[in-house]
């Protein structure tokens, strides 16, 4: 991607992060593929997450703790930290960039209106959840999410994704990934409460916050601090993963290449 477009995208990413502070009154209308009314959850709150990339060391503690807490099948993740090696072409210096990814609990989530049985829905507090008793496993929502935040859970054969650990939030606990974060990089909270830590930090860093793929118009509610524009959308990077297989040829994991 050329420089101008990249910068532009960075601007949009910032603007979109800013626009989210003005709460969109729930968009409800009857047109096909419009957002349906929200249901359940506390209408007084709006949960969001702020990820301070300056504090992320890429240890994947969140990945592991989320995996254990939410019993995701091997190979599927509700959150993962993308790791990039950035090499300066002239000096040859390298740096690493860590980017934790999870569901963005978008204000305009494209995964919701597509669901043919209303199994995926957005709560009044902004959290997007799946009722896996209702889900028919059509995977339409998996296609519709621009962030690859969803997958079909092979145990339940239904859609699965990050729920902001709603089961923990609802009883006053923090999400597993937040709890286990070594650097304290993940801050979750209610952005309708002006005194919450997330509200204070968002106010303090207003203008520096960015969201992922702003061009999709999803109004994500996971905000990144210390973000590099080049990673806002699909990065122009070379992949370097290798499958790790056991002796029977079954895939058991991945390994870095060239290390």
């Amino acid at each position, binding site marked *: 991607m050329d420089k101008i477009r990249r910068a532009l995208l960075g601007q949009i990413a910032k603007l979109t992060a800013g626009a989210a502070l003005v709460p969109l009154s729930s968009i409800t209308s009857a047109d096909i593929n419009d957002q*349906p009314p929200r249901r359940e959850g506390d209408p007084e709150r709006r949960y969001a997450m702020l990820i301070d990339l300056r504090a992320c060391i890429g240890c994947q503690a969140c990945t592991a703790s989320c995996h254990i807490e939410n019993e995701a099948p091997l190979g599927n993740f509700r959150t993962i930290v*993308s790791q990039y090696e950035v090499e300066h072409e002239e000096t040859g210096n390298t740096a690493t960039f860590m980017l934790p990814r999870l569901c963005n609990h978008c204000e305009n989530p494209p995964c919701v209106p*597509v*669901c043919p049985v209303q199994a995926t829905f957005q709560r009044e507090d902004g959290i997007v959840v799946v009722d896996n008793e209702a889900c028919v*496993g059509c995977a339409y929502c998996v296609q519709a*999410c621009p962030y690859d935040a969803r997958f079909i859970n092979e145990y339940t054969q239904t859609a699965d994704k990050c729920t902001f650990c709603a089961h923990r939030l609802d009883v006053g606990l923090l999400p597993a990934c937040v709890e286990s974060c070594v650097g304290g990089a993940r801050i979750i909270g209610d952005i309708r409460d002006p005194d919450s830590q997330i509200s204070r930090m968002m106010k303090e860093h207003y203008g520096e916050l960015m969201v992922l793929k702003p*061009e999709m118009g999803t109004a994500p509610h996971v905000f990144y601090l210390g973000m590099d524009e080049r990673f806002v959308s699909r990065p122009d*990077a070379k992949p370097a993963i290798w499958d790790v297989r056991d002796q029977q040829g079954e895939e058991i994991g*991945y390994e870095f290449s060239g290390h």
Partner: protein
Amino acid sequence: MNSAVIEVLAPRYGIAWYPWAVQYFFLIAISYSSLLLTVPGLLFGKKNYESLAKVALLVTVSCTLVGPVALLADLHQPLRFWHFYANLTPWSWMSIGSLLLPVYLILVVVYAWLAWRPAMQVQAQGEGWIAKLSGWVSLGQWCAPRWMLVVAGLGALVLSVGIMVYTGAEVAIVKARPLWNTYWLPVMFVLTGLVAAAGLVILINRLMTGNDQEVNEQSLKVIFVTMVLSALVAALWVSEGITGFSPSVEQAFASLQRNPEWRAVAIYGLLVGVALTLSAIAMLRRPGWIGRSWLAGLLAVHIGWTFRWMVLMEVQTVAKNTAGYYHYAIEAGSSGLMGIIGTFGLWLAALLIIDILVPWKKSLQASTH
């Protein structure tokens, strides 16, 4: 700052729609397209299109019956299909489709039943179990007035437009996949559906009837016209991407940049498209060649199916977030190869059962009244 970026860690994302989806989109497109091919001969009663209508009706019914089975199989929880009807969701294209599909299916079956009924009533006069069965299926010897056929046919046509719109829109609204997110996709589904349906009609005409030249000629004309239109649509789509008129097409191009496999696919598509169009012209112009139309028929079916395979399966391997492409190797199990073979097997079975039970080559109701 110029820098090279390597993504050192990324999870592997599987595909979420399996080859079953390709089978459904293929069969249902052939279904509505060959329904259109029955219109002049059966609905308007034009004598010189009757042979075409006979073959096309058989194709329509067999594909309409088998398509929904493939759709059901693509659900990870197929036994929960009733949830579609317990939770009507008017804002979801897929939910709208789940309402249209059964009505469409019923109307197509009624339309075919009325068309085949006179011949079945004659068959019911004979001896043996097939005669007996024909008697039951035709529900007596009373004469169904022609308006019933016309109503069922028109109803099926109206619903078929609904099927065209919903199958197209369902995929085209997905912004997350720029390669799908274009108004041209639904149009392309219909056009390539017509190509494949005409091709299948030619094949059935070769294998099950006496390779009727009129049917070949009419189908080749359909192939020619729809191929020219497809080329036009493809050209428009490409120009939208090049000029940046459509940001989503531009993004689609960007997502495939520098990928040799996708370039090969584009070149292949161009080549087979040109080959089919030229052979359709050649066969129409050289009287001696029309008997070999089945070659064009094979190519046409191939194009219709492969287009859906590329659109629905290969596009899923284009990563949304991460670098590179996901690898998708078709599995041998029921979600992969067996699914593809199984659907075609089921379709063949449906075709043969109809062939045994229904005297579909006899006059249709269109001409008996």
